[in-house]
């Protein structure tokens, strides 16, 4: 974590700018959606749609496009700067250490250290360049949307939020169940590969000791076991995935049902429901992707910390 803090500190200007632009881009999108809701409300109330409202909408649309472009540009730039700092910082540190004490060929020399950590360096570098700012942006979006929606209508926000969190637990539980069967299927596959490899390796012994039948039945058994485990895994995978596919639609269904009733009863305007329908995916997608982000981030920080030489 300290390496990440150092990287952020070393590139604080471009990181701050990138985060600031990401916030602006998100706000601009939210304001645009709110204005769309406003437009729908006016139409629902049979009020006149003024040309100024249309112009404002067009302006927000353009600013939205521009800020999204700037967000991607500044995010990629900051990520690349950080990745560059990481590479340069690592080499700098390595060379300083080398000058001070390492003896060529010893465990401390540059070649040995590089060969030990080159995988970590390339993985951390790749994560910074490709994933880091996308995740930062999604997290920012999630927080901003949640805060915005909860102030707009607490009940509808909870209608999206609570089922999403429950689905998250379901996904976590089902992936844990699946990982057990996946690992046993992999073990069976490994066993089968080992059998086929050893049959090739021990072919002279198989021939001399006339063990063809035993080998064929061993291979068949291992193939059948692997096939059975693969089929079980696929069955379970299909069951859990189709269920989670259905469950992922639940927040939207609940939102339409409860929000629809609220609109019919006159508790909220149609425009408000449209705002929620537009924004719910930003919230649910972010929450559902949270476990994979966290595991990816953990791998990233572990790789980074291994680069402390």
């Amino acid at each position: 974590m300290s390496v990440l803090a150092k990287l952020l500190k070393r590139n604080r200007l471009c990181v701050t700018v990138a985060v600031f632009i990401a916030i602006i881009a998100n706000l601009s999108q939210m304001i645009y959606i709110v204005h769309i809701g406003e437009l729908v409300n006016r139409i629902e109330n049979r009020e006149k749609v003024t040309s100024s409202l249309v112009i404002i909408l067009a302006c927000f649309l353009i600013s939205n496009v521009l800020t999204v472009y700037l967000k991607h540009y500044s995010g990629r730039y900051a990520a690349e700067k950080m990745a560059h700092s990481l590479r340069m910082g690592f080499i700098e540190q390595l060379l300083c250490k080398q000058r001070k004490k390492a003896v060529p060929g010893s465990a401390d020399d540059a070649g040995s250290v590089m060969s030990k950590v080159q995988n970590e360096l390339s993985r951390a570098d790749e994560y910074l360049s490709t994933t880091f700012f996308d995740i930062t942006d999604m997290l920012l979006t999630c927080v901003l949307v949640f805060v915005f929606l909860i102030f707009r209508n607490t009940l509808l926000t909870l209608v999206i939020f609570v089922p999403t969190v429950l689905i998250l637990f379901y996904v976590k539980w089902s992936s844990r169940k699946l990982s057990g069967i996946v690992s046993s299927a992999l073990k069976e596959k490994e066993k089968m590969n080992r059998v086929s490899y050893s049959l090739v390796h021990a072919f002279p012994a198989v021939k001399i000791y006339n063990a063809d039948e035993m080998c064929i039945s061993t291979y068949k058994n291992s193939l059948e076991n692997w096939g059975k485990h693969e089929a079980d895994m696929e069955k379970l995978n299909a069951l859990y995935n189709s269920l989670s596919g259905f469950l992922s639609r639940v927040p939207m269904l609940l939102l339409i049902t409860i929000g629809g009733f609220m609109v019919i009863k006159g508790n909220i305007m149609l425009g408000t429901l449209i705002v929620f329908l537009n924004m719910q995916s930003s919230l649910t997608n972010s929450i559902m992707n949270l476990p994979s982000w966290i595991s990816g981030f953990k791998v990233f920080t572990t790789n980074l910390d291994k680069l402390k030489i």
Partner: protein
Amino acid sequence: MIDLKNVTFSYDNKMIINNLSLNIKKGDKIGIMGESGSGKSTLLKLLAGLYRAESGTVTVDGETEPEAISRKVSVVMQSPMLLPLSIYDNITMGHKYPDSQVERVVKMARLSNWIETLPDGLNTYLGDRADELSGGQAQRIAIARAMCKDSEVLLLDEPASALDSENSKSVLEAIMDYAADKTVVHVTHQAQHLEGYTRIYSLRDGELI
């Protein structure tokens, strides 16, 4: 028991065995020495029916066809060639032998003490534990396998070359105790492994000297 007449074998246009003739009587213990690449292992594989001679004849216990020869001999190679099965299956190779015979060969191959320490004994699965076996243990299983087949002809291709001196001595002793009345052909580059053999040849440029 074993008769080679003008046997020639080449590989990749390189002559490995050149017009070689050899007669081995029942009960003989023949040692064949030679440097790495001299063709010792090839000669043993010809005797085991794993290769077919280009010219000349190889006769083992009255058989001349490689397939039939393979059925007449037991071989212990440098590598134990274990399969990912139980110790029992690696010894019997899927054939039905009386339990007393399996127990006897386990004892003769000096495996009993180790097997007694295993929770599943002879049924211990080697697939996941093959890497945990010592070279000596693995080679003793291969020896027990050869003993279990109980052929009249025992062919040895450096069975102790990958072992330390203590293990090597113990493995060779186990083989010689068993093979007292068998016909043995042992190829090696270590002269000390051939003590007490009837005849010792040297293989050079594909010819026996």
